[in-house]
């Protein structure tokens, strides 16, 4: 009897212990990493310790996991292969071969051994499943390998806003440099409201803080201390010494949303601690390893100098070849000219010009506004996304197509002409010649 009790108690202890351990792992995001089945992709590794961003409690993938972060972006870039294209029953046979109505068919996570560029886990020739007849429909494509559709710089699966025949055709003879080389400028700075006073602030405030604020756009726009340091800008509310991003979002909702969507802020969006350069997989300066990324990391508090945020801030963390080559690049020289007042506004090229570009969009009142895209990934991967939003403001399509396909030139931060050639324009011309011959 006693033996049975001991066995019973032992088993019970083991089971309860195991359940308790599981619960600890389950509810402690930092410990969940113990269950990660394989290295996560470069797009998701920042949030890999919080399984529940993508997974259900039973570890299957949430039905809406991908869409909750990527849907808006796909729509914005006019996704050429939306799911709704595949749900028509006439595509049932194709879905048997490749279930293109599910993101995870092509983007499996935790499978580093089969993960290619853009987090694609299908073999590179996946286009063949639906476009095997392209050589017949388009003789210029006969014999071209299906591994090259995406790799050639000619096509993308989702975003082809700058990679379609009519768009390229219209620009096929453009010179390398446009006559007017200027990106869109933001709305004029607000007229100062009078009186511009900081309002109430603690007595021991550093005079430098007041000085920085006085020179800032906040001061010019009449944004007093209370707007950030007291909830809702209410001077009756308690003083908040270090206001968080929510405080910025009260007025800068779009930029904060963009920041949280990109690699810089996705940890914050997932409820984790802010990203630090130490957690990055690309080279970063050791001196910045443990700085946390919030709005204030790039926009120094109180000064909020957007010029500093546009290049200097990036260079204070990033330490890859492209960033290191920036200082001596033609783009950097134009930026130096602009900030020194020699160049016109919009003629300089900072890091942000290309990676956090100014984009025009319609606001809720259907008014066209220019704002800064704070999702650093929005026009970066694949880099053809940048063609329309940035490159064509200053350069011609033939040069841009070649330059973006030239890895060595990217590493040199576009110092010199491209040495790679993308055949898109040649194929368009060839097709026209074939048409003319057949007439």
């Amino acid at each position, binding site marked *: 009897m006693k033996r049975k009790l001991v066995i019973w108690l032992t088993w019970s202890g083991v089971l309860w212990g195991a359940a308790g351990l599981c619960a600890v792992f389950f509810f402690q995001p930092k410990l969940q990493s113990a269950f990660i089945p394989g290295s996560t992709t470069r797009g998701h590794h920042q949030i890999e310790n919080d399984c529940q961003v993508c997974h259900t409690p039973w570890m299957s993938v949430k039905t809406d996991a991908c869409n909750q972060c990527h849907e808006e972006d796909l729509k914005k870039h006019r996704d050429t292969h939306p799911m709704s294209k595949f*749900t028509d*029953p006439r595509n049932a046979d194709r879905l048997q071969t490749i279930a293109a109505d599910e993101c995870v068919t092509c983007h499996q996570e935790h499978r580093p051994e089969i993960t290619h560029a853009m987090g694609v886990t299908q073999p590179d020739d996946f286009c063949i499943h639906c476009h095997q007849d392209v050589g017949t429909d388009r003789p210029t494509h006969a014999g071209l390998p299906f591994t090259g559709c995406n790799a050639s710089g000619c096509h993308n699966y989702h975003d082809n806003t700058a990679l379609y025949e009519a768009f390229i055709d219209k620009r096929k003879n453009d010179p390398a440099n446009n006559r007017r080389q200027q990106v869109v400028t933001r709305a004029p700075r607000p007229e100062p409201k009078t009186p511009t006073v900081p309002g109430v602030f603690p007595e021991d405030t550093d005079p430098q803080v007041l000085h920085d604020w006085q020179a800032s756009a906040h001061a010019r726009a009449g944004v007093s201390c209370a707007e950030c340091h007291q909830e809702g800008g209410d001077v009756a509310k308690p003083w908040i010494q270090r206001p968080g991003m929510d405080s910025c979002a009260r007025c800068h909702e779009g930029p904060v949303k963009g920041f949280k969507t990109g690699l810089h802020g996705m940890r914050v969006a997932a409820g984790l601690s802010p990203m630090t350069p130490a957690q990055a997989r690309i080279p970063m300066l050791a001196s910045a390893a443990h700085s946390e990324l919030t709005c204030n990391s790039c926009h120094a508090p109180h000064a909020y100098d957007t010029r500093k945020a546009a290049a200097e801030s990036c260079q204070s963390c990033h330490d890859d070849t492209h960033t290191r080559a920036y200082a001596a690049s033609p783009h950097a020289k134009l930026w130096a000219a602009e900030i020194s007042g020699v160049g016109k506004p919009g003629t300089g090229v900072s890091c942000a010009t290309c990676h956090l570009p100014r984009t025009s969009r319609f606001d809720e009142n259907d008014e066209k506004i220019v704002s800064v895209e704070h999702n650093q990934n929005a026009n970066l991967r694949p880099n053809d996304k940048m063609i329309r939003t940035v490159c064509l403001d200053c350069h011609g399509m033939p040069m841009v197509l070649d330059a973006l396909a030239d890895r060595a030139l990217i590493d040199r931060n576009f110092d010199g002409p491209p040495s790679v050639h993308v055949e898109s324009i040649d194929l368009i011309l060839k097709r026209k010649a074939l048409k003319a011959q057949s007439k």
Partner: protein
Amino acid sequence: MKNIRTIIASALLTAGVTVALASTARAADIKDQPLITPKLMTDALHAVMDSDRAVYTKNVVNRLANQEKVITATEHWQDDKSLPLPAQMFRMGAEMVAAKNKGFTYSLLSKWPINPQNAPKTEVEVAGLDFVAANEGTEPFYSEETLGGKKYFTAIYADVGVVTACVKCHNEHADTPKTDFKIGDVMGGVVIRVPLESL
């Protein structure tokens, strides 16, 4: 005697209430009764699609682009700041419906498609597009087919070039396999599918 009257009155009242309740219940359930056949459903859907399409083609695109010439209608309408072409308008609607999962799908296909992905693919699509082209759109084509292991009722209605814009654009497009369309020609077909079993 009084009891008998009471019993009769009660019986009548009960019967009345029962009939009233039954008819209410019938009224509540009738919306779920299978009174509409798949053919009636596709005919009704097509009537709406065809009318909306004709209104857009004639009263918006043809009027503003070809007659009044105040705006153009082009394939790359977002870049050109122009009107979407009628066929694009139709496809955008079809994709939006597809995303809503309402149990039916529709598409615009042709034996002479500009995009080869819109050529007939299933046996029923091939037969249906041949049928509506041969009878010049006087009669739709109805059939059943099994796709991905599921059975569908498939109806195909002729899509006729109603204004110059349709014919001209298709004849002149770089990717067109046919360059001699005329107004009134069957240029393709609207394919509507309704599942005949739960999805």
